[in-house]
Every structure is written in C-alpha cells, then in structure tokens.
C-alpha cells in the first residue's frame, strides 16, 4: 500500500470530520426524531420535509447554500467573522457539510427505533411517576439505542464519503481540508497516480468494513444485555 504523508493526514482528517459531524449531530438528531415521533404540533410536516431535504438535493447545492450562509457576506458568516471565527475553508466547514448531508440518515434511523417502542411503555412510565424528560432519558433513550447506533454508523460512513458539499464549502487544501474522497479525486485526475488512488480506496474499504463490524458487534451486545 502506497501512502504519502499527506494521504495519512487526509485519513486522519476524514476520521476527525466524520466523528465530529456524527457526535455533534447526535443530540439534535435524537431531539428531532423525538419531536417527529412523539409530538403533535403545527408545522410537523414542514419539519419532516426540511430534515429530509438534504437526501434529495445534490450535495453541491447543499455546499453552495452553506457557502452563501457562512461566507464573509453571508448572514451567519458575517456574525461569526465579527467574533473572529472563520468557518469557510477550514476542517470545521467539512464537518458542517458532512453533518448537513448525513443528518437525515441519522434522524431516519433513530426515528425507526423510536417508532418500534410500544406507547404503553411510555404511558406506564408516566403513570409510575416519571416526568416527560425522565421518561425520555430512562425509557425512550435506552430503547432507541439500536436506532441511534444504526444512525450513527450510517452517518459516519456517509461523512467519510462526503465530497460535493465539502469541496464547495471547505475547498480541497492538502493537509488542511483534504479528506480521503478529495485526495482520491486529485489522484484520479493524474494517470500516474493510480496506485496512490487505489491505496486510499483500500483504506476507505477497511474503515467502512470496520465500522460495519463494530455496528454489528455493538448491536449484538445490546441484544445480549436485554436477554439476560
């Protein structure tokens, strides 16, 4: 396997971006899934459409919107610039791009997990003296763990592969914002770098397989813990 120093930085950056995007999205994904599954409110359909929108939009479009929002003249970018925070063309922008693109996958999985919870378990919890937030933490959260796990794995994998939105909003700066897909894109542009591109492809496959294995392992552990 042929890996340059920059490739290793790209691998590290990809892992960092995917992990951060997944970890940051988890509480929001859980809250949104809970709202959609358990709450009745006006505008629920709009929320569902908005959450799922990144699934149907081309990632480049998402990247462009993020660029408009976070750029120097953007509404949020302007405010952040005044506070001395630079997002665009940093690894943080890659995190935002990955989080936006992967968020619907995370919500969908957690939602599926929550929908499988029998409503009477929640009613039992409330009638036994638990406040809604107590029920959320002691019943809904643990019973959604499988969904959370599946969603996190999906989102992590999606973040690893994120290309379109990332290249728009974070650029393709080797050693700074160049993730594995961007590095492969660079190698693919040059016919002499096939071996390098293939090496990074192999790394991607290894990471993805590891994530899937971990997911299966943790799922089984959860099932075993429940069966005891």
């Amino acid at each position, binding site marked *: 396997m042929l890996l340059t120093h920059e490739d290793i930085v790209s691998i590290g950056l990809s892992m960092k971006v995917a992990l951060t995007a997944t970890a940051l999205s988890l509480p929001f994904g859980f809250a949104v899934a809970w709202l959609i599954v358990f709450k009745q409110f006006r505008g629920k359909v709009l929320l569902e459409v908005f959450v799922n929108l990144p699934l149907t939009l081309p990632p480049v479009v998402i990247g462009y919107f993020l660029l408009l929002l976070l750029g120097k003249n953007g509404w949020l970018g302007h405010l952040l610039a005044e506070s001395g925070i630079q997002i665009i063309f940093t690894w943080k922008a890659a995190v935002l791009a990955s989080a936006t693109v992967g968020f619907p996958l995370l919500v969908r999985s957690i939602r599926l997990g929550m929908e499988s919870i029998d409503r009477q378990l929640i*009613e039992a919890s409330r009638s036994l003296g638990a406040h809604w937030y107590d029920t959320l933490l*002691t019943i809904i959260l*643990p019973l959604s763990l499988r969904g959370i796990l599946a969603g996190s794995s999906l989102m992590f994998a999606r973040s690893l592969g994120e290309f379109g939105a990332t290249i728009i909003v974070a650029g393709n700066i080797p050693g700074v914002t160049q993730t594995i897909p961007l590095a492969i894109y660079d190698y693919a542009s040059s016919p002499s770098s096939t071996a390098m591109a293939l090496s990074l492809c192999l790394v991607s496959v290894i990471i993805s397989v590891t994530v899937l294995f971990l997911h299966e392992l943790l799922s089984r552990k959860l099932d075993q813990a429940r069966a005891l």
Partner: protein
Amino acid sequence: MKLHIDIKKKLGDFSLQVKSDIAGERTGIFGESGSGKSTLVHLISGLTEPDKGEIMLDGEYLFSSRKKINLAPERRRIAIVFQQAMLFPHLNVKANLLYGYKRCRAENRHIKPEMLVNQLQLQPLLERGVENLSGGEKQRVALGRAVLANPRLLLMDEPLSALDDTLRFQIIPYLRSVSEKFGIPYLFISHSLTEMQLITDHILEIKNGLSLDETTPEQLARNRMAQSPNGYLNLLRLSSPRREHGLFAYQWGKNSLLVSAGEQAAESLFELSSREIILFKKHPEAISARNLLECTVTEMFESDGRIGIVLSVNGEKLVAEIVRSAAEELNIKPLSTLFAAIKASSFRRLASSQD
C-alpha cells in the same frame, strides 16, 4: 377512596360520556370490547385529556375544564396495570419493580419493596431479565411495580385477558391482595363477569360510551343471565377431594358433590352454568346425573323472560335458570323445596389451590 367522574370525550366517531361517584375500594368497570373502558383509564390517569367535565380523587381535582386544571399523569399518583404487562425490556425484574418506588416521595412510601416481594412471591425472579418470564410472572411483576409506586388508586386495565385460564386464576388472589394487604383501592376493568365476581364489590357498567347505574357483580350477573351464552355462572369453591368410582367427590359446605374434571388439590374453584341444573318438584326415582341435591328456593328473579331460581343447598347458594312456563308448571315460589340434578361433567374447573 372517593372518585368523582363527570366527563365527555370525543375520539373520531366514538363519544364517551361518564358520570359516576365511585366510593368502593374494589370497583369494576364492566363493558364489552369497544365500549370505552380503556379510554376511561386514559382519562382518569391523565394520559388523555377529556374535552369537558371534571375528575376528582379524594376531594382533589385531577381535571376540571371549568377551573382549567389538568394534573400531569406523574402528579396524579394513579398507577396502571396493563393488559400486556408492559415491563421495561431493558431493565431486570428488580429495576422494573423499583421504577415507580424511586419516583415516589419519601413520605408516601408506605409499601416497602421487601413486603411486596414476599407477598407476591417475587424473590426468585428479582435478578432475571423480563424477556425470560412467563405470562403469569410478567403480570405479577407488573402488579408489583404498580403497587410499589404507592399510588392513591390503581387502574387494572384487563390485566388477565392475555393469560390462559390457569394463569388467570393464579393471579386473582394477588390482585385482591392489592386492596386487602396493601390498602390500595382499585378500578378493575374487564369484560369478564367471572373476573368481576371474584375481584370486585361494585361495578360501573359502560355501554356504547355511556356509563350506566352502579351495580354489584351479583346483580349484573343476574341481569345478563338470559343474554349470556352460559347463563348465570355459579362459582363454587370445593374442597377435600377424594376419588370415588372414577370421579372426584368434593366437599361443598355440608354437601358432597361428584365432579369428573377434578384434581387432587386442597381447594378448587369451579364454574357451573345455571343452565346445567335441572329442577324436580319431587325426588326423582332413577336419574343418570350423579348429583341430586335437596334445596330451598330463597329468591326468584327475571332476566329477559327467563327465570332465575336462587337456591339454598344446606346454606350454600346456587342459581338455576328455567323458562317461565316451567316455573309456572312446577309452581315454584320462594321457600318451595326442590331437587336439583347436576351432571358430574357440568362443572368446569377454573383453578386449584396448588396451581
């Protein structure tokens, strides 16, 4: 316990209107499937909000549309035992039992876990996962969990209907112990008259979403005798069985009864339909039925054209059912002496003490 209910709730095409003052410690809510019993459970416990009206428990408003009061479920201290046990699958038996107890204020913790575990015989189950329990064990844990929350009122929403007959009658003494041993009043919801007779003292009947007058299990059984497929179901506690000519000879008070579906247990509960009893004005000369009992008519009642004859057999009560013409022909009146013939195979065993 005093529960005042005067509420209206519309759910799609279905409308529930209940007005009642419940004062008993062991009250049944009786009604056919779809009559609105479970909706009432949701409304009393605060899981669903009524459209209009008020609910008061021991003088405290739980809900009042006029006063704009709607206490959250966790503040009502009304626990529920569901049809399916609804144990938390990620917690073991012990953690399930303590779920409500931990959330109960210290000053309200009158029932301690040790007392309950002994009473419901849960000790061997404590460390087990709930997925591995039998249906009866699950329901006992669910009952224990609800009792340990030290509620002011316990709502039992058809807790026996998911169990087979054997398990059902094993659980009944535990259900009764909620009020007898722990002093917690309950509302027992069911569509089974037999369960009502064994578990409750008063009944509020709900029909098509409307509450009817309060009655007793006995009165309800009499009212429904004609329309019920098995007539009036006599519940007999028979004891000390011994084998006799391939049958079981049981003691029933001062009487002896021959039963084919018996079991060697100190005491068994049997069901006998009022339609399985044949009445004779005089002692018949020869008869194939293995039980012939001399009895006195204590009371007569009518149910949709059928006549219920309440008999005293050496102090034990039995209800037989005949048509009006038979009652007239035999000239049956209170204090008449009759002979009741019952086949040994007419008794249906519900439970035995060793089960």
